């Protein structure tokens, strides 16, 4: 394991310290907890957004704490859902009286831990609403699974629900728009190489020199299948076709696109992928309102990428393009 760390046991703690030292204008630590909240938390009279999950997905989730996006982010151990007490502390620290929306990615662990936290916060009289993100079309959504996983599409939930909260909307309205994003966002990814969880010290799987994992999860969970590495265009086409097969998009529909790097992929390659994605959408006369290219929801040093498509209506578009000022996403 070749990593720039001091101690695998301390890596989350030290990352959080480093993040607060880097971004004091944006975030502060909830003392004693792996929770970063806005520097001016709690913001009174605004619904607060709390997201989180295992660490290792940086800049998710603390990178999105700031005006126009999240109020708090909870960092679990690497790739492991945070515990209920941590999420509960985040909710307490950010509640400005209008309630808290918990943004949860659809994993058994995340759901159980966030639900327990919600019960704890509600017992304190805090209004809590939840939204579960499940954008990954790699996983079939049947009665035989726990449903789709939540991956990079979560960033669009942060952005749009965060912008809605900034307008002074009520908790139920913020939850509703978050659910609208979930209903309209689809993603799928692939990996070229595994990553190493610091505490494990070795990679959780191996891929042959020419082999890739299609439909890879963001925790090193296996995907739908392995295959020989194909060209960027063929791979992008495969992923985008799976996405487009799952959401009705016609001529003159408008979308936002994210080509997300998993942590170890050069930006150069993400642009090559975007070239194909943009060409395919243009061919179908689908308009792209905004494209995000970069590392938004990573898996440590994993090489690979995901494509996310969000179908917009005028409401979603306006909120997507609204200002945001956070460590990892600034728009104005």
């Amino acid at each position, binding site marked *: 394991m070749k990593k720039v760390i001091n101690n695998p046991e301390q890596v989350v703690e030290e990352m959080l310290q480093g993040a607060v030292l880097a971004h004091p204008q944006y975030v502060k630590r909830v003392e004693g907890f792996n929770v970063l909240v806005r520097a001016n938390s709690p913001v009174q009279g605004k619904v607060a957004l709390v997201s989180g999950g295992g660490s290792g997905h940086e800049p998710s989730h603390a990178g999105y704490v700031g005006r126009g996006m999240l109020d708090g982010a909870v960092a679990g151990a690497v790739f492991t859902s945070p515990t209920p007490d941590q999420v509960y502390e985040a909710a307490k620290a950010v509640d400005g009286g209008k309630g808290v929306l918990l943004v949860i990615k659809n994993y058994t662990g995340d759901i159980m831990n966030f639900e327990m936290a919600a019960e704890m916060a509600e017992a304190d009289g805090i209004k809590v609403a939840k939204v579960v993100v499940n954008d990954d079309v790699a996983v079939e959504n049947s009665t035989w699974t*726990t449903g789709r996983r939540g991956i990079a599409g979560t960033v669009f939930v942060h952005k749009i629900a965060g912008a809605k909260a900034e307008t002074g909307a009520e908790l139920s309205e913020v939850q509703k728009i978050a659910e609208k994003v979930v209903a309209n966002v689809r993603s799928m990814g692939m990996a070229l190489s595994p990553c190493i969880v610091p505490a494990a010290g070795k990679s959780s799987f191996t891929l042959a020199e020419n082999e890739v994992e299609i439909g890879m999860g963001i*925790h090193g969970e296996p995907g739908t299948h392995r295959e020989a590495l194909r060209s960027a265009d063929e791979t992008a086409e495969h992923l985008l076709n799976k996405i487009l097969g799952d959401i009705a998009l016609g001529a003159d529909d408008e979308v936002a696109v994210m080509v997300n790097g998993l942590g170890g992929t050069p930006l150069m390659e993400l642009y090559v992928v975007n070239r194909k994605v943009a060409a395919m959408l243009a061919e179908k006369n689908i308009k792209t309102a905004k494209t995000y290219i970069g590392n938004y929801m990573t898996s440590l040093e994993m090489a690979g990428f995901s494509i996310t498509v969000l179908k917009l209506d005028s409401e979603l578009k306006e909120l997507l393009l609204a200002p945001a000022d956070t460590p990892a996403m600034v728009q104005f």
Partner: protein
Amino acid sequence: MANVIAAIEALADAVIANKERLTELDAVIGDADHGINMARGFEAVRGKLAAANPADIGGALKMIGMTLISTVGGASGPLYGTAFMRAAAAVQGKTTIDAETAATMLNAVIGGVKDRGKAVRGEKTMLDALEPAYEAFVEQLNQGQSLLVCLEAATAAAEQGVEYTKTIIATKGRASYLGERSIGHQDAGATSSYLMLSVLTDFARQHSQEA
């Protein structure tokens, strides 16, 4: 209560010793953290044990449950945490455990896991170790067997349950994303359940030999 503390220590030791193995099982069809998660939880349990000084078994199990909930995370944290909390409630005030109490506890554990995880037997989860274990336990109990014999039967059934998980598709938890590709691989959570049962059985065996 010295025995109870010793049993908990044995439990913690075994989980921590199996950190790598449990993680490797989770790596194949999950996200390679089950052993790390459980070890982190039981390190914390061991750290609290000295200071906790519980008055009864219920207090000790509650401490374990709360510690697991606040340190393990993932799916197994809430599941095992809830399980120990429920077990605690089932033995409140007691300082020793007989076979009947143990059956009640095991039943409470299963109830906790099901309430929290909404899974049923056959979905390739810890329930595939726990439910057969409970049934085997009760079968022996009904025949008037000792706690040790009941535990031995339960552990043997749990072990078979672990084997059984290799043959089925996961439909709960992270392995469910794999569909058919999950066949052939044993479930990490079922393995940790079996492990804990077997440690407690070994402990009971040693204890009954001593006695």
